């Protein structure tokens, strides 16, 4: 898919490297996830692959076509739903009219087929009752759903969805995820989606690439990704913050290699059972009351670890 890609932006006279010699490839027909924190370079990569942006160095091809030299061929076979694109349709046209316009006019889908497909897809994602509403009357999440529908209406060979469920509620997001995955499998479509939603990546992606600071940090299955957390076990503490003294005491416990703070504090160690009572004691001594339990490491843990490793690396180099 892309080979040694570099993308440098000029921003206010300064050069910013968004992609730094990135090489990766997705297999035909698979659901491939591009994972990474904000500013990692995921959207930049997708924009290069969808012919919207030119790479500074390196080569990329989609479906065997060079994105720079054969851009119209690439455009013939791709579908695309951009990030934050929930305003990107005609507000005074209905959902059905919008989808018909885009599919029939810009994607050359015959009118009758486009009409039939709009009904079928809307039915599958539970949107049939809103097809005649004006685009402007939809909620942000509903608009995003229309944009996802627009991306797949012409049955592209490869579809790029940039954070497709960002503004969807959890129920709709799940429905869209499962529909898009089924649709891709049924039509032999390669699906490339960017996300920092771990659940989404775990549920949908067969393989994923983790990008941070424009560099590839990992490529493999979600299971392999989780194994990147080089600890056997995890202890979760029901707090979202810790004072530095408690944090350093926890990190000094035997076998503890790391700690992350988010919705919960997560402690990574060699043997959770061995230190569980020490953690509880430490919490009691510090006057903290919160549930403490042993959990399986999740994809989110791997994500947090890789980002943290990169930050450490930058700090050391800096």
């Amino acid at each position, binding site marked *: 898919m892309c080979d040694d890609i570099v993308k440098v932006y000029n921003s206010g006279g300064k050069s910013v490297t968004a992609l730094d010699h990135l090489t990766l490839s997705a297999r035909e027909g698979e659901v491939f996830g591009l994972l990474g924190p904000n500013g990692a370079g995921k959207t930049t990569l997708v924009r290069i692959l969808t*012919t*919207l*942006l030119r790479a500074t160095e390196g080569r990329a091809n989609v479906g065997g076509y060079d994105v720079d030299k054969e851009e119209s061929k690439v455009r013939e076979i791709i579908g695309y739903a951009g990030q934050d*694109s929930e305003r990107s349709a005609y507000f005074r046209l209905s959902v059905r*009219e919008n989808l018909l316009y885009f599919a029939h*006019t810009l994607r050359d889908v015959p009118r009758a087929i486009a009409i039939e497909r709009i009904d079928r897809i809307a039915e599958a994602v539970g949107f049939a009752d809103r097809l005649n509403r*004006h685009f402007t009357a939809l909620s942000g999440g509903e608009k995003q759903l229309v944009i996802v529908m627009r991306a797949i209406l012409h049955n592209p060979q490869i579809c790029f969805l940039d954070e497709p469920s960002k503004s969807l509620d959890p129920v709709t997001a799940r429905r869209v995820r499962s529909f898009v995955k089924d649709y891709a499998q049924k039509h032999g479509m390669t699906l490339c989606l960017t996300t920092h939603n771990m659940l989404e990546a775990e549920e949908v992606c067969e393989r994923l690439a983790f990008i941070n600071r424009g560099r590839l940090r990992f490529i493999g299955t979600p299971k392999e990704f989780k194994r990147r957390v080089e600890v056997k076990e995890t202890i979760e503490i029901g707090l979202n913050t810790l004072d530095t003294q408690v944090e350093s005491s926890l990190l000094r416990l035997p076998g503890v290699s790391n700690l992350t703070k988010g919705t919960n504090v997560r402690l990574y160690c060699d043997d959770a059972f061995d230190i569980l009572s020490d953690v509880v004691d430490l919490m009691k001594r510090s006057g903290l009351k919160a549930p403490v339990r042993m959990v399986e490491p999740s994809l989110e843990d791997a994500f947090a670890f890789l980002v943290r490793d990169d930050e450490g690396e930058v700090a050391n180099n800096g």
Partner: protein
Amino acid sequence: MANPLKLFYMAVWRDLLTLTRYKANFLFSIITSALFGLGMLLFAFAFNTSLLEETVGSANYVAFAIFGVSFQSWQSIALWRASGMFQGELNTGQIDYTFSCPFSRYWYIVSNIAASAVQETIFFIPMLCVGLWFTKETLTAMGLMLGLVATMVSVAALAQLGTIFASLVLKYRQVTAIFGFFNFAFQMLTGMFIPLQLLPLPLQIIGQSLPQTFGMDLLRHYVMGTKLIMAIEYEWALLFVQLMALALIAKLAVLYLERVAKEQGLHYI
């Protein structure tokens, strides 16, 4: 790849649907067009009609000005519609989707301009009718047809300039100052409100290089029987030369500016 004709008629369909859904705006645009034509009567009283007759062979300033104003409405569409469309697409992020689709950017722009011209014609018809009413002594069916053909060729040439401006939006995002400058120049130097022959010679030369000058001159000649700036065959020939030269430049500009714009990305964010 989508063919230009489909891009055109689907854009007409989309625009007409959108237009009719802003009902009050739709109605008032039609009323304004008719009132504008009648308002030209007031100018007629203030204008030195004997000077007009001496210069162009007709003292009918009402019709002279109405045909100028009608050109102004099509000129606005031809020159600025595509730029406005791209600015809208940049703001909503739609440009990322449209530019990931396989169609000729040049024909996409030209088709959308043409679709808007169709829409604009709806509002233009009441004003044109008022103008035609004032030329009923000189008007013939053939004259009207030839006048409209000249108008279309001229507007098509202007649309090429509009295409160049639209591709500038891809690269420079905000080009309203360029719009303002050209709009003013086009109004003053093309004989829209004052006969070109009354301008100083250097300005006349500039005026003759602009696509609407001959279109407007031919329209008035066929409909009102005015004198032409130069021989009729030269005016037609120059009109077609302008159309072809500008079409070539516009095609190259779109190719070049899309490529340049893609260095930083087409999107706003």
